């Protein structure tokens, strides 16, 4: 039978220009990411990332919803560490209103942020190992992720999309059982990390698959504005918790973990050590946790007690005004950044007065990471691209907003 082709490059087996489309729905793609590449043999020669498949107009909604209502949307940014987003957003609004939260609230927030950092790093390391075939690590670590989620559930009643923070405080105080539970977690979780380290760190297969793969050099990392563990793995000593400290971080004792090569292996090591440092912070916070009020006394944001709402007219009106009209944020702007699990998570809020923001910009770390991924994946092999993508931990919700 005569072969009829219109384009000879399409069917030639030894074609140096084969086009491969990964995603947007693919088991090795973390979320709805799409990478289109031109491969020569197994080497990716050209790649292009198409993003926006999870775009939900969160920034536009930030201008349409009141400050209070928008809190739930922050959960859906980086859904692996929702607590971190909640708190960073509450912090941004409080900064514009010049409110400082109580000491107990600061401790709870730091605790939550570190807990969610552990969860996020667990997901990254476990899924990265799973992508490369090491399933045991996944089972070992996910048990602890479950435990962390159960602790979060006991704090606010939700597991994944927490909406725990409120502007001026937290929605609930800590449960009585948490202290003990957290101690147990801090004692036993590092043992699981030791086990994982025993399985991976000196494992020949793991080293062969990860060392020298997906290298982002120090210069490139800075040019691509990468932040967080990936920047530190490239050898830049930068951590907002230490360099631009917020809340009680100056009182806490922790080390900033810095790598040197900027490859997948270094990013894995940095994340593993950061989990240990987070456990260290959790221990200190748990020990020092002060008693006292949870909520600020500022009347503009203070959500009244439910019992009083039902029994006092003035309090009912106050409650109604906060939830139906929203809080009145004065004119002004601020760019508030926290060290999120993936890097610098910033909320740039421009207020022109009133209950809604004029501009709600989310500066997400994943955006920069994926841009660097697009550039550094060229020249590597397809399996290396999967390893690289797993190690930078791109969360589509945060990438596309």
């Amino acid at each position, binding site marked *: 039978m005569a072969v*009829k082709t219109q384009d000879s490059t399409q069917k030639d087996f030894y074609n140096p220009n084969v086009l491969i489309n990964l995603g947007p729905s693919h088991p090795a793609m973390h979320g709805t990411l799409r990478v*289109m590449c031109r491969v020569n043999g197994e080497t990716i020669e*050209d790649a292009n990332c198409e993003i*926006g498949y999870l775009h939900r107009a969160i920034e536009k909604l930030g201008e349409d919803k009141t400050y209070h209502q928008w809190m739930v949307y922050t959960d859906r940014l980086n859904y692996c560490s929702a607590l971190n987003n909640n708190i960073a957003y509450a912090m941004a609004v409080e900064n514009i209103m010049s409110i400082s939260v109580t000491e107990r609230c600061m401790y709870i927030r730091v605790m939550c942020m570190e807990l969610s950092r552990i969860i996020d790093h667990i997901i990254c390391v476990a899924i990265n190992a799973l992508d490369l075939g090491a399933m045991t690590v996944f089972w070992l670590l996910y048990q602890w992720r479950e435990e962390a989620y159960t602790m979060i559930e006991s704090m606010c009643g939700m597991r994944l999309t927490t909406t725990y923070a409120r502007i001026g405080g937290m929605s609930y105080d800590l449960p009585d059982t948490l202290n003990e539970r957290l101690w147990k977690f801090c004692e036993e979780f590092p043992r699981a990390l030791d086990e994982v380290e025993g399985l991976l760190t000196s494992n020949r297969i793991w080293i062969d698959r990860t060392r020298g793969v997906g290298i982002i050099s120090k210069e490139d990392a800075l040019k691509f504005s990468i932040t967080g563990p990936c920047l530190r793995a490239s050898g830049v000593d930068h951590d907002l918790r230490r360099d631009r400290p917020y809340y009680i971080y100056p009182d806490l004792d922790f080390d900033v973990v810095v790598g040197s090569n900027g490859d997948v292996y270094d990013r894995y090591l940095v994340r593993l050590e950061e989990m240990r440092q987070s456990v260290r912070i959790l221990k200190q916070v748990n020990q020092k946790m002060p008693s006292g009020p949870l909520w600020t006394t500022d009347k503009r944001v203070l959500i009244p007690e439910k019992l009083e709402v039902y029994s006092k007219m003035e309090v009912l009106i106050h409650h109604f005004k906060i939830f139906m009209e929203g809080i009145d944020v004065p004119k002004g702007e601020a760019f508030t950044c926290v060290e999120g699990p993936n890097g610098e998570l*910033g909320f740039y809020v421009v207020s022109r007065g009133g209950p809604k923001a004029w501009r709600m*910009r989310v500066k997400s770390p994943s955006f920069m990471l994926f841009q660097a991924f697009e550039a550094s994946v060229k020249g590597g092999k397809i399996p290396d691209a999967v390893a690289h993508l797993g190690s930078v931990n791109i969360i589509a919700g945060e990438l596309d907003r």
Partner: protein
Amino acid sequence: MTTSIAPKASYLKDQEALGKRLVEKYGPGRKVEFDKLNEPVIWAKTPEDAKLLFRTFMLDDAFKMDFLSDITAYDNKDGEDGEKRFVLVYQQYSTTKHVRVRIKCLLDESEPALTLTDIFLAANWLEREVFDMYGVTFTGHPNLRRILMDERFTGHPLRKEYPIKQREPFNDNIGFHLGANPMEINTNITEGSEN
């Protein structure tokens, strides 16, 4: 002032010094403001001036602003910040002194801004996002296309006049392409060509 910043943070001294330096050295002819976190905001006169300021701050001896944190914009439809339609915002950061500076620039609807892609590779996607959301164009950008919205999308969603409920569904994906280096792809393969 009460904020989330720890009172003993060591960068606060540098931030104050930076504010003073900006007012003295770059202030004449430009408006310098301080935001709620006491971080300096400097208004560039033109887009060219914004890029010049960006470069100058990178090379400033006292504060090497060697890191691009963010590029974004916001709609100035109510005219509160000036006559022109949009405000372009550069967030610059110093990895040595840990201070931030924000460069702002007013832009008309059809007025192009200058690209920063020749200085920072990260500016590429950030500028594409600003173009996508506001329709601000950047002269010199290598690949100015929509990034979050579909290529077939019309309008710029973050402009204030864009209705929040307006949707434009597409029932298929964007075809395969290689970004800045588009490639002719023939998808019309004749059946039976496998033999």
